């Protein structure tokens, strides 16, 4: 059981602040690091992995600073986002080399065990050059698992995986978390995170925007005001009907036809709208959300 602690960590490059005064604590179990692209997730993971010196603050693994202390890699495993590996080696040679670099007592058994876990045994004799993206990802996983680390860091591990591989990796992360390992992975996809992680940390623009179990984060994201554009056969009548509902906060007529609607309760709005329209005999021609992009969700989180 290991704990990774970020204490008021900042990292800047010249004038650009990539990570801004982040304090977090990662306990055993699976934690998802959620944020839009460019939010600083990779920078944060690099700081946690000891591959980047904090400009201020400290990252500590069980009380030991990770920067400049290669010993921490005995308890830390890292799956980087970048695909590059020693691709002229076979999968087996690569994972075995990782086991040997860890100076494990029985590197061959450790390598075999790691390759078994990620189900890469059938392809372990081929050179990595010939692997698909998903296979590379799994062989990278195996290389990070050979020493059975108490803390596992994964940078966008689901990128480029097909649904089956994705499911398999999710199960794996689940198992690791249940085994008492501290698993931290980054992702910019909410659905991915909530399927695996019990704990979610949201990063937006280098800042720690929100923290909690996935239910709480989900609610924060879903229960925000939603904006829609409607095109109906009778906009004015529809506007009047909608305003009677508690889930609607504002309706306005667009100058070029159509309605801008702001709903406070997405679920209720979604159920309510078709019924109201049918009862009034109004035809819905188009219903489209205007701010469903993840960025706007994150922007809302930062503001709240």
């Amino acid at each position, binding site marked *: 059981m290991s704990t990774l602690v970020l204490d008021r960590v900042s990292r800047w490059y010249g004038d650009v602040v990539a990570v801004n005064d982040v304090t977090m604590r990662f306990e055993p179990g699976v934690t998802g690091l959620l944020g839009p692209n460019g939010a600083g997730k990779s*920078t944060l*993971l690099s700081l946690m992995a000891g*591959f*980047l010196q904090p400009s201020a603050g400290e990252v500590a693994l069980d009380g030991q600073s990770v920067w400049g202390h*290669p010993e921490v890699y005995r308890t830390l495993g890292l799956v*980087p986002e*970048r695909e*590059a590996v*020693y691709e002229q080696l076979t999968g087996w040679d690569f994972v075995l080399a990782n086991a040997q*670099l860890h100076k494990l007592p029985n590197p061959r058994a450790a390598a075999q065990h790691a390759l078994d876990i990620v189900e890469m045994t059938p392809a372990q004799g081929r050179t990595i050059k010939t692997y698909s993206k998903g296979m590379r990802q799994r062989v990278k996983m195996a290389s990070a698992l050979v020493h059975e680390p108490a803390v596992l860091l994964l940078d966008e591990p689901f990128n480029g995986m097909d649904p089956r591989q994705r499911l398999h990796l999710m199960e794996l992360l689940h198992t690791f978390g249940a085994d008492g390992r501290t698993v931290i992975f980054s992702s910019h996809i909410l659905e991915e995170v909530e399927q695996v992680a019990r704990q979610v940390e949201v990063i937006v623009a280098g800042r720690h925007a929100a923290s909690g179990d996935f239910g709480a984060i989900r609610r924060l994201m879903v229960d925000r005001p939603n904006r829609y554009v409607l095109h109906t056969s009778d906009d004015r009548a529809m506007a009047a009907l909608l305003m009677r509902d508690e889930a609607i906060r504002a309706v306005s007529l667009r100058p070029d036809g159509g309605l801008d609607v702001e709903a406070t309760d997405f679920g209720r709005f979604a159920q309510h709208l078709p019924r109201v329209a049918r009862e009034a005999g109004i035809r819905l021609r188009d219903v489209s959300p205007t701010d469903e992009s993840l960025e706007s969700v994150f922007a809302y989180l930062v503001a709240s």
Partner: protein
Amino acid sequence: MNATVMQIAWRTVAGRRRGLVLLALPVLLIALAVVVGALTDPSVDTTLAIVEGLGVVVILPLVALIATSSVIVPELEDGSITYLLAKPIRRSAIVLSKVTVVALVTIICGVIPIAVAAYILEPNEPRLVLALTVGAFVMALGYSALFMALASTTKHAIIAGIAYIFLWEGLLAQYMPGIRWLSIQRWGLKVADTIRDISTKANDLPLWYALLAMAVVVVGGVAWATRRLARYNLSGED
């Protein structure tokens, strides 16, 4: 040093097409020696023109540079060095292992072919063969450490290395004699010249200086690369 790091480094050199270029250069040198040796009765001057002028001055540093470009440059660029760095191994052990592999490749594809070519041309001049071999050996260590330091410092290490070999040691040194104080080639030739007078390049450097300077480059290069590697920054794109 770390056996696994060396093993991976060795396989990166041997497993790439660059490995063939590494073989082509020494083969060219030995073939030239065979042809010249068969067609003429080479003088010491001819031998020096081929073995020193082509082998020691051009092929040896090129081999060291090509070896460096396979052993360290790509993995710093694509980030696969992460797999070595995320291990409880001293950074100095990683650098030393890599420098050792570069030096070994340079000895196999540079120093030994120089010895062979010199022997083919001057079988009756063992001292000349020895002088060129020892000089080349010392230079192999110097170039390996220098290029490792360059590779750990700049993304343009190969261009910097070529500029060092051909502009600094090659061209500029002809017009600015002071450069001999700052030239691995001249230090190595001084060592060779001490064993047997080769006198192709006026070499008034003190031997102690040549040896000391070479030692500083080797130790300093390894120390510098270690320092740089300890600060290797993984996150490029976020």
